């Protein structure tokens, strides 16, 4: 059976071109860039090239790019590194809908005497910037995600960065879901720190980036050797870094054209599902959204059951339902948006990529109404009319 992969916010396929770039770096060119011989030393040039490719996509200088092991490390390094460099300030502002890589770190800070403010969102998942403005005083760091992994809602990050840095406060954004989907020019933005991960944009798992604006004080998170200009110790993940560089180059070239294609497919899928399935609703701000993500709730039925039915047809998606995670509580993002329990349990996220085709979308559109109908026939909450 063919796999139809609509779970690209979880992870993506490694692009063939990316894999080809990486291939010789395992068994042939395996040297350590820090070594004092040509065999190892020549790897330095590869890393330099990757750094330029990343800088090109971000619109920043290569020296502002630090390679890490992924999004979670970048988030940890940005938050803890900033606070360590600013020991006199004890307040951090974030949002209730952050990824756990930020939210868990912030909540842990409370145990070390920090005050942490978690900004709420409205029913569409949007922030109230006036509330953020009110909270900024004597704050060490504001960390707000670029785009939400569950709903795809995009925050006005350039505006937020300006607002925050105008008050002399450091601004970090977890841009894991935004990179490669939203065009960026950090040279024209006020963002101080930005995290992203390779495996969300067709590079392999285990490599990521922390962008640190020139002049930003950051204590290193990982100590050891002198790699990454002393900002991140540890022998470089050369194949990962080279792959990430290539993935960024591909993204810079094709971002707009590909997004138009992906958005068209997403819109078609979303429109058809909402039309064909009664009692379904879209979660999140329809306007300010990633082009690839849609989060839809099906009332009266449960997300894990829907996922398993989809799986039978080879369709991969994900759910904010409690049952998929092993916890008894549904998604913290949907709960923060005030989505009722009944709809949160039955939420499904489809996240597309440039590798999806119209045939896949059509096939999914064909299958979903039947799945929803079948599960609703089992559900004790559906009155006979709603079928």
């Amino acid at each position, binding site marked *: 059976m063919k796999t139809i992969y609509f779970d690209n916010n979880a992870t993506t396929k490694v692009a063939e071109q990316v894999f080809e770039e990486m291939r010789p770096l395992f068994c042939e060119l395996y040297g350590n860039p820090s070594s004092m011989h040509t065999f190892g030393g020549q790897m330095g040039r590869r890393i330099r090239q990757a750094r330029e490719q990343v800088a090109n996509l971000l619109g920043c200088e290569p020296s502002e790019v630090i390679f890490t092991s992924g999004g979670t490390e970048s988030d940890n390094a940005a938050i803890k590194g900033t606070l360590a460099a600013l020991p006199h300030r004890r307040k951090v502002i974030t949002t209730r809908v952050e990824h756990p890589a930020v939210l868990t770190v912030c909540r842990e800070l409370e145990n070390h005497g920090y005050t942490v403010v978690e900004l709420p969102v409205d029913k569409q998942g949007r922030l109230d910037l006036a509330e953020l403005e009110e909270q900024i005083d004597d704050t060490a760091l504001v960390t707000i995600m670029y785009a939400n992994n569950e709903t795809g809602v995009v925050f006005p990050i350039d505006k937020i960065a300006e607002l925050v840095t105008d008050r002399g406060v450091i601004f970090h954004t977890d841009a894991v879901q935004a990179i490669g989907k939203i065009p960026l020019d950090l040279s024209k933005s006020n963002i101080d720190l930005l995290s992203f991960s390779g495996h969300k944009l067709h590079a392999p798992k285990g490599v990521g980036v922390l962008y640190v604006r020139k002049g930003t004080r950051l204590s290193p998170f990982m100590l050891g050797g002198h790699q990454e200009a002393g900002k991140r110790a540890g022998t470089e993940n050369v194949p990962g870094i080279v792959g990430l560089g290539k993935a960024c180059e591909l993204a810079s070239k094709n971002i707009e054209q590909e997004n138009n294609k992906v958005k068209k497919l997403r819109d078609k899928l979303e429109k058809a599902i909402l039309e064909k399935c009664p009692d379904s609703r879209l979660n999140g701000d329809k306007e300010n959204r990633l082009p690839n993500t849609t989060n839809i709730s099906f009332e009266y039925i449960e997300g894990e*059951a829907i996922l398993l039915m989809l799986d039978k047809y080879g369709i991969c998606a994900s759910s904010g339902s409690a049952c998929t995670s092993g916890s008894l509580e549904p998604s913290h993002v949907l709960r923060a948006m005030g989505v009722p329990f009944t709809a949160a349990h039955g939420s499904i996220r489809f996240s597309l990529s440039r590798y999806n085709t119209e045939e896949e979308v059509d096939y999914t559109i064909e299958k979903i109404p039947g799945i929803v109908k079948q599960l609703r026939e089992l559900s*004790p909450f559906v009155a006979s009319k709603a079928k």
Partner: protein
Amino acid sequence: MWEYTDKLKDHFFNPRNVGEIEDPDGVGEVGSLACGDALKLTFKLDANRRITDAKFKTFGCASAIATSSVLTEMIKGLTLNEAMKVTNKDIAEYLGGLPEQKMHCSVMGREALEAAIENYQIGGKKKHELEGNVICTCFGVTDKEIERVIRENNLTTVEEVTNYCKAGGGCGGCQGEIEKMIEKIQPDEIKQAPVTVARRAGKLTNIQKIQLIQQTINEQIRPALRTHGGNIELIDVEGNKVVVAFRGMCAQCRLAELTMKDVVEAKLREFVSEQLFVEEDKESAKQPHNHRE
């Protein structure tokens, strides 16, 4: 991804006996939309009080649907007396096993069966009512229900109880009570588990004691409260009396008093001193503790 048996998958993809029996002899409804799963079971009896037909409707995950389906298959042909003896373990075993965190699905099946039998016995007039006192207010689980899953499945930890009947899986306020129930019901099992005496500091100066209390709140207590949107602040220490204030969700929780004794006091006694007792700050105690009403 959950590891489901082939039998479970079969019953999920091809559920047997879906629907509602018209003019049934017994109806059992358990669970709710908010809880994430619910089951409505109906059955029909013959003249010898043998179940001739059973049907179900279920809202829930794959394992909830599959357990409902096998339940109907299992009870067809049984007399009421035989059906009464079906346990959640029987249901899980019939499926070739369930993931630990999904055991509550089998308990839901057994509960629905019981409710339906009871409904028949009282003449189909009244709906099934909860027996005993509600211990877990988040998921509406009574002491009778908790006691039963502990006995039937030989459970020894709070986590297991949560996996089997959800009790304790919401705000966590009832976990202390569940632990006490386990100790009472399974004293022999508990004794077999190794008991470690807490390693406490020797004699403390006042400053050291206050610091240790603060540290214990930071490291041991706050993270647990944070998982369900609550928070706690140390207000004062007078001798062995520790005064704290609840914040966030905890401030409105009517289970705050239980949390105080079962979580806060227990942890402070474990990590600081047996003699400590906790009181809620008067200001924060004035707020109504009734968000579920």
